[in-house]
């Protein structure tokens, strides 16, 4: 089976709201896929469908070529949900120990604690963890079973910068051991930095699907920022390669598919141009352009 997880033309409505509208998505073995989209794009619904927590109105959700619930009950999937909570009144170590015993080939509690940066908190009660610590415990719960597929819904919400960095290190390590990872995020730089492939969704549909670099290329590869004495946006937009122009006071921001040609034309037309910066477009730019399109 070459496909670990797939959604095929799935649709799901809640009342009159169509949360997922003909979404098709696949995760290959060992792949890290980012599900990227604004709030309300259908990310959480798509993940719930994939895990069998929701049944699609139309289309098919499959894990390892079979019904999602089969894969879940065999312990082949580890997941954390945005609205998933923790059992209260038990210690971190006890909870992980009990969960561990449910899986056929789990990792040790110690390893899960290390991966999720929970060292020293094993004896802490789950209801006395901070927001970031609770989030890390959810990560440990998703990893403890040594699953073949790891599904994470907005995993780094409530994590500080340091926790986020070590979290992504742990996830990359899991992927390099051959596990597949699907995560949703609105931290666009995370999708860019971590994923092999980015699936952008908006309005319950796939808007773009490809490597982060390709996603960026589809909407202009570079951003040129420049300060000009006289801003003439209409003329700037006519420069070679420029796809869009935005202005902030005396400063213009040009998105371009060919920054070299744009710069040559810019300097000959506006010799007094200063403070020129050329940067690769952040995924956020790609994302906003795609969703607006």
């Amino acid at each position, binding site marked *: 089976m070459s496909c670990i997880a797939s959604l095929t033309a799935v649709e799901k409505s809640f009342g009159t709201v169509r949360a997922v509208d003909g979404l098709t998505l696949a995760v290959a073995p060992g792949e890290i896929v980012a599900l990227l989209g604004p709030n309300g794009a259908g990310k959480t619904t798509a993940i719930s469908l994939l895990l069998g927590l929701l049944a699609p109105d139309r289309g098919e959700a499959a894990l390892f070529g079979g019904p999602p619930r089969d894969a879940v009950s065999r312990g082949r999937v580890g997941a*954390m*949900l945005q609205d998933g909570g923790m059992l209260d*009144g038990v210690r971190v170590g006890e909870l992980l120990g*009990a969960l561990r015993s449910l899986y056929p080939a789990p990792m040790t509690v110690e390893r899960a604690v290390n991966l999720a940066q929970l060292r020293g908190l094993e004896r802490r009660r789950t209801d006395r963890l901070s927001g970031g610590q609770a989030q890390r415990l959810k990560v440990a719960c998703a990893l403890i079973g040594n699953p073949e597929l790891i599904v994470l819904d907005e995993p780094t919400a409530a994590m500080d910068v340091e926790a986020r960095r070590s979290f992504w290190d742990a996830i990359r390590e899991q992927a390099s051991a051959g596990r597949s990872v699907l995560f949703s995020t609105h931290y666009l730089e995370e999708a860019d930095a971590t994923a092999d492939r980015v699936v952008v969704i908006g309005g319950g549909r796939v808007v773009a699907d490809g490597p982060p670099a390709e996603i960026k290329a589809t909407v202009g590869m570079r951003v040129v920022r420049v300060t000009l004495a006289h801003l003439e946006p209409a003329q700037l937009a006519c420069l070679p390669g420029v796809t869009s122009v935005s202005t902030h006071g005396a400063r213009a921001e040009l998105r371009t598919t060919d920054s070299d040609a744009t710069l040559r034309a810019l300097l000959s037309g506006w010799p007094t141009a200063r403070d020129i910066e050329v940067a690769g477009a952040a995924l956020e730019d790609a994302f906003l352009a795609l969703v607006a399109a």
Partner: protein
Amino acid sequence: MTAYLTLELRRALRDRRYLALVVGWPVAAYLLFSTVFGSAADRAEGLDPHVEIMVAMAAFGAMGAVLMATGPRLATDRQSGWARQLRLTPLTAPAALLARVGAAMVVTLPAVCLTFVAAVAVKGVTLPAWEWPVMVVVLLVGTAPFAALGLVIGNLADGDSAMGMTTIAYFALAALGGLWMPPKVLPAGMRAVAHTLPSNRLAELAWRVAAGHAPPLAAVGVLAAWSGVLALGAVGLARRFAS
């Protein structure tokens, strides 16, 4: 599944408020009622009043332990999102339910046993040795309808209102079921109501054992009927919320 049952048990036994309520109260109520009403000559079931009240309070404690361990806790787990998270583990929904109910029924033991200990130690109650373990078992197994009722409440209510709903159900069933005052002193209409209630029938199981008899089939039938109806209700509600 065993590990998860252990986890649920730990959680219940670490909850001091819960233990104080479900263990402390029946023992205290026993000592109070037994002291105040213990000299009344004519009590229910042809038993010594100290024994009759002991069994009533043990039943009161057992049903409270099970109700409090199922209803509010299930509601909390649903509200916190743990119920959803648990559906992503290999633990099946029926196994999770069994662990929850099993743990709840096990925590009836301290309530029942400590009430018995208080009766023996403070009020000098004596019964044939075989009756004690049989009473413990029938009081444990007989709490099944209360576990099912707790699951109904836990599926209906959110974390805050579940405690209130459970407490109301607990006290109403105890009072109307004749655990606080024996059905015998109640008007005929209320006595008829009491006999339809699982609280009364739960106590009846152990009253009959204390009197040296087998638990009556009618009581078993009423408890089984309540268990069945409430369990179907709980499953129906759980299905509705799962989709």
